[in-house]
């Protein structure tokens, strides 16, 4: 069918079953926006207040829907603002498709107004990118972009479309299949190697499973739970793997790493076989992989061959999709018991105790534990970056059906609120709560307007200590207490700020207000904000 390329772009999104897009218009993307207007019954456009937040919202949407999500920006600064979101999605392997406008084809390279080489600038952070110069290529490029973003190891794909190309005509037909000769991700694991991995796991006396974000990417949550229980193997996760297991699961020993919990780190230290599933052994999770590979037999499943052997040597490397590999292992595995090993690990699970907080503040970990016990089971909690992230990762009690999101790889401040907006829109039946500090919140609070405008009822918890807590702590401990550039004097009154947006807000300074806030967060489905005052000296761990 003959149509304008801009309209064909919309048809591509419809064909990919895209219902929501996040974006920010500008001159170079206006032809596409004009076409999008005619499709408003099929595709809802959400106007974010900053392009990076459009990328984070698409990120949150993709993580909850399990499918690629879309964000849009104009040329030049619009596109460069997206880069942080692209890099964030790349680091965490989140499938997003970013559409940017570009200046007219004949102007490319002449430094015209709002021109930026975005395919060049974003190159290190994309799984793939396209600069679309011929409208005839458009259907294939869109089909490939969604395919590449969502298959294999997922990641961001960028499509840069010059304005004149958007206005050109083409004969539109959306391709049904994709054939890219340089892209054939391995999904099925080698059968013999799967058998070897399984027998190494069966022969172990103190086996341990370490789950990473790859388990979510491959939708293998059920398979890994069944395997762990069938073989009675203790489980730990990286930060990206949190919420695959519920904190109530007796086989679960928490998050490992430099900010992890004792039970998880002792389990890594003492296990004889470590089974890594979709975990890339990042430096925050395993600080000394070379020492670990000497003492421990490493079994490593990953869909990305480059992750195997990159950070840690594997005795049993296995390239494949976790869901497919684990299902095969489940069929072959026989039930086992590791009572002694589990009883031993249980001794590292120490009951939580909370020190009393100073006047006018609450203990953040105590609040986190109490709040999480009250929240509905299926809550999605989105942690930002810094102390709030670690308190959430280790203190928030995940129940069966719950979900934890964070920008684990890139550590992008200002992720939580826009990602929460995306997560909530992907599944409006689930409560979604962003948890951030007063540092990150001031990088993202413009999105309160987005939430109000589009009626996205997220809950926001801002932990305020008037400083960048984790950096302050680093300076206190690592730089002889020379604290610099970490105090946030000049911050607004966050309650008044929320109220200025017409958002219900509440401040927590003591036990009474803590209980009131927990009631608000756990019982209302309205957009609301809770400020939690914490001591600036409160420790991360």
């Amino acid at each position, binding site marked *: 069918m003959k149509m304008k390329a801009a309209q064909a772009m919309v048809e591509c999104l419809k064909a990919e079953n895209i219902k929501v897009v996040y974006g920010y218009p500008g001159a170079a993307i206006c032809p596409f926006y004009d076409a999008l207007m005619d499709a408003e019954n099929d595709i809802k456009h959400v106007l974010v207040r900053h392009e990076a937040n459009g990328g984070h919202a698409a990120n949150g949407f993709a993580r909850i829907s399990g499918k690629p999500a879309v964000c849009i920006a104009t040329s030049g600064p619009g596109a460069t603002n997206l880069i942080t979101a692209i890099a964030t999605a790349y680091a965490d392997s989140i499938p997003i498709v970013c559409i940017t406008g570009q200046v007219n084809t004949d102007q490319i390279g002449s430094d015209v107004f709002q021109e930026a080489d975005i*395919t*060049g600038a974003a*190159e*290190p952070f994309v*799984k*793939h990118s396209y*600069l679309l110069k011929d409208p005839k290529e458009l259907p294939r490029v869109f089909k490939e972009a969604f395919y*590449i973003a969502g298959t294999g190891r997922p990641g961001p794909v960028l499509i840069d479309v010059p304005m004149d190309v958007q206005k050109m005509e083409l004969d539109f037909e959306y391709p049904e299949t994709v054939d*890219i*000769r*340089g*892209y054939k991700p391995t999904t099925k694991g080698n059968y013999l190697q799967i058998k070897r991995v399984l027998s190494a796991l069966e022969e172990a006396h103190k086996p341990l499973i370490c789950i990473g974000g790859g388990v979510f990417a491959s939708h293998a949550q059920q398979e890994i739970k069944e395997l762990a229980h069938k073989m009675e193997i203790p489980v730990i996760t990286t930060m990206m793997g949190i919420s695959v297991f519920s904190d109530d699961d007796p086989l679960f020993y928490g998050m490992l790493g430099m900010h992890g919990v004792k039970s998880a780190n002792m389990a890594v230290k003492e296990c004889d076989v470590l089974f890594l599933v979709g975990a890339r052994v990042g430096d925050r999770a395993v600080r000394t992989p070379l020492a670990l590979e000497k003492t421990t037999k490493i079994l490593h499943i990953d869909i*990305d*061959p*480059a992750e195997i*052997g*990159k950070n840690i040597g594997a005795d049993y490397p296995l390239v494949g999709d976790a869901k497919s590999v684990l299902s095969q292992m489940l069929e072959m595995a026989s039930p086992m018991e590791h009572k002694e090993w589990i009883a031993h690990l249980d001794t590292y699970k120490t009951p939580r105790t909370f020190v009393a907080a100073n006047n006018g503040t609450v203990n953040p970990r105590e609040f986190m534990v109490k709040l999480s016990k009250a929240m509905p089971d299926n809550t999605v909690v989105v942690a930002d970056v810094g102390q709030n992230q670690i308190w959430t990762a280790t203190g928030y009690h995940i129940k069966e059906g719950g979900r934890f999101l964070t920008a684990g790889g890139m550590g992008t401040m200002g992720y939580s609120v826009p990602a929460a907006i995306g997560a909530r829109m992907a599944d409006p039946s689930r409560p979604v709560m962003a948890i951030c500090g007063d540092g990150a919140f001031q990088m993202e609070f413009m999105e309160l307007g987005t939430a109000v405008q589009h009626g996205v009822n997220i809950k926001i918890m801002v932990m305020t200590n008037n400083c960048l807590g984790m950096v302050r702590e680093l300076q206190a401990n690592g730089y002889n207490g020379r604290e610099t550039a970490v105090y946030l004097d000049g911050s607004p009154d966050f309650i008044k700020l929320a109220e200025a947006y017409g958002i219900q807000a509440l401040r927590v300074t003591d036990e009474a207000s803590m209980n009131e806030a927990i009631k608000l967060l756990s019982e209302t489905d309205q957009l609301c904000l809770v400020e939690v005052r914490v001591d600036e000296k409160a420790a991360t761990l």
Partner: protein
Amino acid sequence: MKHTISVLVENHSGVLSRISGLFSRRGFNIESLAVGPTQDPTISRITIIADGNEHTVEQIEKQLNKLIEVIKVKTLSKDECLARELMIVKIACTADKRSEVMTIADITGAKVMDITLTTMTLELCDTYAHLKRFEEIVTPYNILEMVRTGTIAIQKGAEVIAPKK
């Protein structure tokens, strides 16, 4: 240790920048890189000489393979590799030195491309090691200008590097 890596890529604009960008951001050292079309006009072939230990070369191969436009990657071992590189060198050479230089060219297999009253320009196509020796020999004649391509390489024997059917 030096490695010869052959890479088949889509003949698109921007592919080379993706590859060179990958090497610089992952800290891989490129000694030389040569690129040109193949008998299939949609495919270009890149020959990369890279420096690094085995772990590095494994990572280079794997990371290259992740690029969508990379069709095939193969590291060629020294014994199975036919490699050539081209050098053009302009040296200061007046009439009294010409026959000496001609003798050197004869022995080394270099060809005289151009000659003036004060210079001679020679070309030599051979292995990296031979080119290095040749450079040492002509250095005393005062090299005015030198230009070389990167190494290109192909496997010995009947085996070929081709995209999967």
